């Protein structure tokens, strides 16, 4: 059986449908990402899988055990890192870690080998209070705490939110390393650019999975021709491209604007824009990113 299996998981809070019939499976040893913005339902899904919340309907199994009936078995086997770094701010790095070790009936020494590559970053600050660590350090400590009992499945809910780019990259390197040791990892993130670090991803919005696949397949499935435009006046350019006949959709994309249109339309657009007096105008064909795919799916799902 797969490490995580769900069947039509559904949960609503009052009138808000947090999860709508979510069905998916995570293979053993897979690094699986759930990509979605705030309010997409990621945390709700994690809480159900970590046996903290019961679904209204549907079923889920983690490591072969049912989340409702066999939650004790699951709790022994999983590592869980909630959205907020769940550390005791007034306890030191070492105290936090050894406390969580005893919660799971183990010791730091017993499982040191697994956390060593991560904990080595923290060891110089072993006596520092967790509350005085930077975001990146807190994140690493929380990961150590979630790993201290050698879980077979790891749930990480938005571990990189609020963390600077350097620490984010280090963190993903660590996840890659854990994955190579056979730990199944389910991780959620609002950052589209982190999707590429996962084996497979689910693009989530408003309690639903819009698409599930490898990042490469998702990008490959982007059908439209995508272009990037840039000029001296980006604000005016956005309106001009958007309202040009034949352009399907146009949106800002960092320093450029992305738009979809056929090649013939783009030729006409080029002439039109040149006549409008833009300087330093460039229009080039670009490959889609996960973010482009996400927005295209969003349009498809929600008009």
């Amino acid at each position, binding site marked *: 059986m797969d490490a995580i299996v769900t069947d039509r998981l559904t949960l609503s809070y009052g009138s808000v449908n947090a999860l709508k019939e979510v069905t998916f499976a995570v293979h053993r040893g897979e690094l699986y990402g759930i990509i*979605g913005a*705030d309010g997409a339902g990621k945390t709700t899904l994690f809480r159900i899988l970590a046996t903290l919340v019961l679904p209204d309907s549907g079923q889920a199994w983690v490591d072969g055990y049912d989340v409702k009936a066999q939650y004790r078995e699951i709790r022994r086997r999983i590592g869980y890192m909630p959205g907020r770094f769940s550390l005791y701010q007034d306890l030191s790095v070492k105290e936090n870690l050894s406390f969580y070790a005893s919660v799971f009936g183990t010791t730091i020494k017993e499982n040191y080998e697994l956390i060593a590559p991560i904990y080595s970053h923290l060891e110089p600050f072993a006596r520092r209070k967790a509350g005085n660590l930077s975001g990146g350090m807190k994140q690493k400590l929380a990961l150590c705490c979630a790993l201290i009992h050698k879980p077979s499945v790891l749930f990480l809910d938005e571990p990189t939110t609020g963390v*600077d780019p350097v620490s984010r990259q280090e963190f993903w390197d660590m996840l890659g390393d854990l994955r190579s040791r056979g730990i199944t990892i389910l991780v959620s993130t609002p950052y589209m650019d982190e999707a590429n670090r996962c084996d497979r991803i689910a693009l989530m919005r408003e309690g639903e999975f819009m698409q599930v696949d490898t990042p490469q397949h998702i990008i490959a499935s982007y059908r439209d021709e995508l272009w990037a435009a840039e000029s001296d006046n980006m*604000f005016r350019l956005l309106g001009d491209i958007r309202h040009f006949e034949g352009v399907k959709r146009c949106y*800002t994309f*960092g320093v450029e604007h992305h738009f979809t249109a056929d090649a013939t339309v783009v030729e006409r657009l080029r002439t039109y824009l040149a006549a409008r007096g833009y300087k330093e105008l460039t229009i080039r064909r670009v490959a889609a990113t996960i973010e482009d795919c996400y927005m295209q799916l969003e349009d498809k799902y929600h008009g």
Partner: protein
Amino acid sequence: MDSVIKVEELTKRFGNFTAVDHISFSVQRGEIFGFLGANGAGKTTAMRMLCGLSRPTSGRGMVAGYDIETQYEDIKNNIGYMSQRFSLYEDLKVWENIRLFGGIYGVDEKEIKHRTDELLAELHFEKERNAYVKSLPLGWKQKLAFSVAIFHRPSIVFLDEPTGGVDPATRRQFWEMIYAAAEQGITIFVTTHYMDEAEYCNRVSIMVDGRIDALDTPRRLKSEFGATTMDEVFRALARHAGRKE
């Protein structure tokens, strides 16, 4: 071009610790300026000085035409502020929030009424006039918060990590509003450590250990560092940081 922010050798020390170390830069009218740096690099301290909330230890600075050392009260009246953590009162209605902040910045009653109608029409929020802010979706709140931050027509608006965690489509709507405001001549000063927000700025500065280590357009920075994203530029710079923890 006239500069709306101009600082020279701006420095802030706390005891032996130099939080901001002789930074100099200027921001033009209508520019979208990204102010980046890792946690602890000195971003917040520098921004506090620019907003007139903290006095520099040494150096000079002019913001919106006022001296940050002596005319900080005038500065406060001529800037707007918005952050993702705090912007609007959730338990007040939409129009109550607008009136509150309009009043705080001394916009007179009649003008507030007039501009409120205008603002709600622009955002297509007429139906939500009497809704509680907490009942609005996150993306709407942000748009409203930005509109409120520029309600008193400040010459600069400071945005603190404005779009972290928002879905891509909503984020773009928000940036389009920022572009529109900049087009009207409002200077936008964005502090963030989300690099995807940095890509939207006209120019960005990157602070490391209290100094500005890089300042240019995102495109030129990327080519200078041989990088494809701002993320890589940032990582290349932050790697040399001495102030690790």
